[in-house]
Structures are given as structure tokens and as C-alpha cells.
């Protein structure tokens, strides 16, 4: 007796084409970075300034003691006694002459550029013929 041949379904069914599996890392939730906002510093400074101003204004003013003149006056430097000659006309004339001499010395110009003599070209420079 012949065995009927029965075609058996294949044991390797066609596998659907899939992507190769890669190892997946767990998702990381990035926290937003905390950045310092310079506006806060500005506002803080204004608040501190206003607060400081109020504090200073509310404080009681301490009055300085008014100075009272002492019984002993401050000693002034001794004025040197002048000799009688200092008021004489000869001395006053001398002072005037010295000032005038000093002015004359300061105004004198030794190297006066306006007086420099001119220099001229002398040889004519034609070839001897």
C-alpha cells in the first residue's frame, strides 16, 4: 500500500523582513539649565538701594558739638622786627632796580635767529672751456 504523499507545510515559514534590533538606551529627560538672569541682580540692587536709603533717612542724626573758643588763643608766629632801613627810599629804589634788572636779563636773546647772516652759493659751476 502506497502511502499517499502529503505535502507538509514547511517548517520554515517565511519570516517577515524586520530591522535589526539595536540596543535601545533608556530616554534621558534633560533638565532645563538654571541660568542667572542679570535682570534679577538689577532689581535686587534697586531694592537694596531703596532700602538702604530708607534706613539711612530714618536714623537719628547725631549733632556735632559746637566748638567753644578756649581761653588760650592759638599762638601766632612771631613777626620779625624790620630794620629802619627797610622803609627808606634808598632801599625801596634798590628793590625796584633789582626787579628791573632781573626782567632785562630774562628778555635778552643771545642766539637771535633774525640776525643770522645769509649764506649764498658762490661757485657758478660752469665747465671750463
Amino acid at each position, binding site marked *: 500500500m502506497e502511502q499517499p504523499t502529503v505535502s507538509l507545510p514547511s517548517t520554515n515559514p517565511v519570516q517577515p523582513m524586520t530591522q535589526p534590533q539595536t540596543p535601545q538606551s533608556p530616554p534621558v529627560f534633560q533638565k532645563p539649565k538654571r541660568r542667572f538672569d542679570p535682570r534679577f541682580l538689577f532689581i535686587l540692587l534697586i531694592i537694596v538701594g531703596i532700602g538702604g536709603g530708607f534706613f539711612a533717612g530714618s536714623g537719628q542724626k547725631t549733632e556735632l558739638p559746637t566748638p567753644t573758643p578756649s581761653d588760650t588763643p592759638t599762638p601766632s608766629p612771631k613777626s620779625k622786627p624790620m630794620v629802619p632801613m627797610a622803609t627808606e627810599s*634808598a*632801599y625801596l629804589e634798590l628793590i625796584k632796580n633789582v626787579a*628791573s*634788572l632781573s626782567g*632785562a636779563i630774562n628778555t635778552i636773546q*643771545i642766539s637771535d635767529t633774525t640776525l643770522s647772516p645769509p649764506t*649764498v652759493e658762490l661757485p*657758478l659751476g660752469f665747465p671750463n672751456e
Partner: protein
Amino acid sequence: MIQKVIILIYVLFIIPTITFASSSSSYQEYLGQFDVYRSSLNEFKVARSEYIKFKTLTSQQTALDKTKKMLTTRSQLLRVYLLFLNEKLNESKAMDAPQKSLYQTLINNEVKFLNNHIALMPSIGSLKDAESVSQQLTSHYNGLQSSMHQTIVGLKMAELTAIDTRYFDIFTTMYNLIQTNKSSFAPEKQSIMERWLLQIQNKRDLYKQKTDDITKENAALKSSSLSEITASYQRILKLMSEARQYLSEGTSFIQELTTSIQFGE
């Protein structure tokens, strides 16, 4: 009365202005003449190089014309400068009459030479003539420069001498004043004053040494070499500056002493 006031104003203000204008106008004339000379010198140089290059009759004639013009302006420049120096001598209050006359004679001789030199210009008929006339000034040039430098030194030395005379007068007055009132000062102060007077006198001695050096150096101004004249003139200027410095320092000492002698202690 009004006439007297007008005359007084004229004497006080207008006459000094005229004398001042005299030297300053001479200087302006000298500067103007310098420009004229420079311009004619440039034209001469161009004409000369063209003549040397082309040797044509036209370039020769142009060179001759430009040479004559340059020679005339050159002599006129030197002449105008001498007249400016003459005006400076006239205006100098520091220089005495005999000295003034000496320097004016020196200048007048040079002006005469230049006038004669300028008079030769129309007779120049060739470049050879021009060379010969130019040579006349060249051979006299050192003497001319010597006269100019001597006059400048004379003017400046007169100013220094006038200041020294005033310095000595003030020193003498102060010395006499101190001697007359010696009893008003404390003994220590008297010795200090004596020392200061000595230092003031020393400054004048140093000034005198410098003027002696200037007199010696002045002889070199009469040299026949132009470079020696210029070098000597520079040395004299340096010596005069040093001499002036001594008088200046001495005057500062005088000022200190005059302030100090007001007080007895």
C-alpha cells in the same frame, strides 16, 4: 596847552614807533630779497644744466641772462642784510657812540664793495665774464662774513655789558646800604650777609672771565677760513649764554639778599 600835549604824545609814542618800524621794515625787506634770490638761483640752476646738456646758442644765452640776474640778486641780498644790521646798530641803546661808529664804518665799507660789484653786472657779456665777476665776490666773501659776524657779536656784547653795568651799580648800592646800616643787624646775620655779598661778587668775576674768553675768541672771527669763522661764532654764542647765566644767578642772589636785609635777625 593842547599843542604841548600833542607834542608830548608825539615824542612819547610816535617817535619810538618810527624807530622800531625802521629795523622791522628792514628785516621784512631782507626776507623779501631772500625770496627773490632763491627764485633767481633756481632759474639759474635750470638754465645752467640745460646749457651743459645741450650746448646750444639759445641755452647759452639763457644761461648768461639767468647768471646775471642771479649775481645781481645775490649781491643785493647781502647788501640788504648789511643795511638791516646797520638799522640794528642805530637802534641799539646799549652800545656807545664810538663802538657804533666803528661797526657802522665796517658795514659801510662792505656796502660800498657790494655797490661796486652790482655796478659791474651790466658789463657782463659772456659766461667767462660772469665767472670773473663772481670770483670777485668769492675772494671777498670771507671778509664780508667776518664783518657781519663781528657786528652781531658786538650788538650782543653791548647788551650784556649794559646789564653788567647795572648789576655792578646795584651791587655797589646794596653793599653801601648794608655797611651804613650794619649796626641794625645781629652779628650772625652780618656774617651771613658778608658771605652772600662775596658770592654775588664771585658770579660777576665768573662773568668777567667769560667775557675775556669772548674777546680772545673774537680774534678768530677775522680768520680767512669760512668754516673757522662759523665755528668761532658758535663758540662765542655759547660763551655769551654762559656769561648771561652767571649774571642771572647773581641777580637771583641779589634778590634774596635784598629780601633778607629787611630784617635785623
